[in-house]
């Protein structure tokens, strides 16, 4: 079977679009982290600095899975590994 080059590129674009759906998870997770951090600052305003640091650290770690999806999308669009 040999596929047309344009067909492969189109499928790569669809795959890239599907891959960045991975962004949903980190979005929800970061929102939860930010909400809880806001609640924590409300309860203890004195610890705002530490809470902000911890929130950013947790969010950056939670972001990783979304970035994997983004990485797959970027590879599909620009490196084009599926082209013969």
């Amino acid at each position, binding site marked *: 079977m040999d596929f047309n*080059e*344009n067909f492969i*590129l189109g499928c790569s*674009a669809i795959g890239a679009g599907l891959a960045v759906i991975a962004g949903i998870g980190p979005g929800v997770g970061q929102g939860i982290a930010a909400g809880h951090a806001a609640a924590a600052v409300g309860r203890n305003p004195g610890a705002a600095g530490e809470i902000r640091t911890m929130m*950013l*650290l947790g969010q*950056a*770690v939670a*972001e*990783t899975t979304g*970035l*994997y999806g*983004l*990485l797959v999308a*970027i590879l599909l*669009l*620009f490196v*084009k590994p599926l082209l013969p």
Partner: protein
Amino acid sequence: MMQGILLSESNVDFMIHGIFQYSFFGHTVWITTTHVCILIVMLILTGFAIAASRAMKKGGEVPGGFQNVVELIVEKLDGMVDVSMGKAAPRFYNYIGTVFIFILFSNISGLLGLRPPTADYGVTLPLALITFAMIRYNKWKYQRPMTIWEDLCSPLPKWLPIWMPINLISTMAVPVSLSLRLFANVLSGTAMMALIYGLLGWIATAWPAALHVYFDLFSGAIQTYVFCMLTMTYISNEIGDGVRR
């Protein structure tokens, strides 16, 4: 034109390019834009370090000007290591400080018009491998071999190493996830800026500066902090309350 606009090579370009090649024991080795950018970063940091050591050498009791800046940087970095590593901290001042300054400057070198060196997996993977080697070495240095074996078969008793392969995989995942996190964050910023500049043309004047503040400064600083923080957390987890042999 047979390709879509995103895929044309002329307007969107954030890839690594080879500059020249040479033969190294029969292998063809490329000098790429990453090498050049990393060389520039290294030169700037070396120049800063020489200037800093000269300022410290003739510095007085009362610091002034440049000496203040250098002392502030060193104190902040050492304080960061102190907070998260506790007693073992002084052994890691050098490594964490070096890595922090290098990654931070690499990330924000996009502001100078360079392609950030950390947007190349060949740069972040060695950094993560150094960290990984340090984690393993300190585990070996601070724990008894029996404790290491018990940790390896962790949820089950030590005479039943069924769970060991899973633990081995999760150990091996540490450098991969560390390096991919840094790489993907910086690369995504670079890619988005390239898309904005490449596809919007003259519309992208002046206002992308705000995006540079986010993608280069904010995201770069956060990812630097996360890399160093995770390095310190992993190492101090492995050290535990062990005594150095």
